């Protein structure tokens, strides 16, 4: 029963994976048909010494911590807010999760539209209130903050959705007991709500963590990694190396580095899943 799916999956995942390992030890040329030339460890040595790749990993790391961090805090806060309100919970949640369904490429372009220095609504807002008057996507720091916030806009709703599901499934008795005992909201949050929803929040974190390195469309379409490479996260670097400079073997080595990262996240996710199953 499983065989057809597994054979197909093997063909489109394991073969390309082995191929990529082979590529990373070669200089790959596309001109006049695909050709390989053995390069030994050259690509790997280059990857560990290339300052551009190093800076891209660093930018990715900051981007990762900033997006996932803000999304977690904001997403949980909004979930708690929705949990507490008495009327309109469902309609509010439906409106809040809309951004998740919008193609990242559209989110990137929409961000660019809102921040356009001449015609953008948000640019106009910042300019007329004198909060920020430079072209927002044209300066390194503000461009980086912008691409972080675009991702935050699209994916905070996912954290809210997952956390709210965890909140709703909490045992009401424990919550009521804490209320009757006169525990303040903060005390209830700390001693009842968070302990009861930790496992759900961990799942939300891991799901976001794996997607944060998977996608790069938003940055691609809004800043394309600029200005001056300040938003060039590692997938964009890989894409440039592969399809702009045609250093395909080198790009394969970078790709395997990224793959190692996602395998770590996948392991953590499976561990979290197991723990939830044990907990019931």
């Amino acid at each position, binding site marked *: 029963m499983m065989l*057809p799916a597994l054979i197909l999956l093997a063909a489109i995942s394991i073969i390309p994976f082995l191929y990529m390992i082979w590529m990373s030890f070669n200089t790959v040329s596309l001109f006049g048909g695909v050709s390989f030339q053995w390069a030994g460890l050259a690509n790997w040595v280059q990857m560990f010494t290339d300052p551009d790749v190093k800076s891209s990993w660093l930018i990715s790391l900051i981007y990762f911590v900033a997006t996932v961090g803000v999304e977690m805090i904001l997403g949980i806060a909004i979930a708690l807010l929705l949990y507490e*309100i008495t009327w309109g919970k469902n309609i509010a949640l439906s409106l*809040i999760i*809309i951004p998740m369904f919008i193609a990242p490429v559209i989110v990137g372009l929409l961000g660019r539209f809102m921040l356009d220095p001449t015609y953008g609504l948000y640019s106009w807002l910042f300019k007329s209130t004198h909060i920020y008057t430079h072209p927002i996507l044209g300066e390194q720091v503000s461009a980086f903050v912008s691409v972080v916030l675009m991702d935050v806009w699209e994916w905070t709703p996912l954290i809210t959705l997952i956390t709210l599901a965890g909140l709703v499934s909490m045992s009401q008795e424990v919550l009521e007991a804490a209320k009757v005992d006169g525990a303040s909201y903060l005390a209830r949050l700390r001693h009842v709500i968070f302990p009861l929803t930790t496992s759900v929040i961990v799942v939300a974190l891991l799901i976001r963590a794996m997607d944060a390195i998977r996608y790069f469309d938003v940055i691609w379409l809004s800043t394309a990694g600029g200005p001056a490479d300040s938003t060039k996260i590692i997938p964009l670097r890989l894409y440039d190396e592969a399809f702009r400079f045609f250093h395909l073997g080198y790009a394969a080595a970078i790709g395997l580095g990224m793959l190692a990262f996602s395998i770590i996240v*996948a392991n953590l996710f499976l561990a979290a899943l197991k723990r939830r199953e044990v907990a019931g």
Partner: protein
Amino acid sequence: MSRTLRATTRQVILYILLVIVLLWILVPIVWMLLSSLKPTNAIFSSTPTFLFVPTLQHYIDVFTSGNGFSSYIVNSILASGISTLISVGLGCFAGYGLARAQFKGKDNLAFWIISTRMAPIAAVILPLYIGFRYLHLTNTLTGLIISYLTFNLPFAIWIMNAFFSDLPISLEEAARVDGAGRWQTFWDIVLPLVAPGTATTAILCLVFAWNDYSFAQTFAGPNSQTLPLSASQLITQTGIDWGQLTAIGTIVALPMVVIGLAVRRWLVKGLTLGAVK
């Protein structure tokens, strides 16, 4: 009395916060919708225009500007639709097998499936690109469909497994006792019971494929361009036609928002890969 007053004040503050959240979420979306309906001079003005005579001109332009927009729509529907059908079809069988079979190495199999789903897109594109060049699959819908299977097939197997695992096995055992065969049990008893799960899986597969940009940008040629590409092509050296762009943005986003919200009840399970119900 003071207690109810305090509770009311608390609710008022919560609703003020909710309004702020909703503004943050909705302003860009509403602005995109409004801009797509604005006359061009109302978009290209240095102060935002709120009052205007709505026009469908940008939508008409999108379809008539000679870029073959209708064929982009057809390509998008075919590539995401066919990859979804294959993923969900095969995923149903494999997911059921995974949920019910006990065998050595099941954990390893699960790990392989989930890490395939999690693999970074840029890293997946690279070997596929070489392979597709070799097999002459660039600039074909087949190539695009195969590339969408790389993330949708493992996703469908995994999620269907989660939905099947939730069914009590006693139902199947009862059917078997009544003399139903393995296939009959699967078709007549099990499959109808997971219908909402199958629908959710199909819709999420559709959303992931429809929203793809990276694969299409790399593999698609004139014969297989999809909708998201048509949006990016409006970015030119001479400037960006924001009217048409917001119109395309609306066309790309609207159907996905509608079908996504239709399965909201099962979204959490689908999007957490079955880890949260």
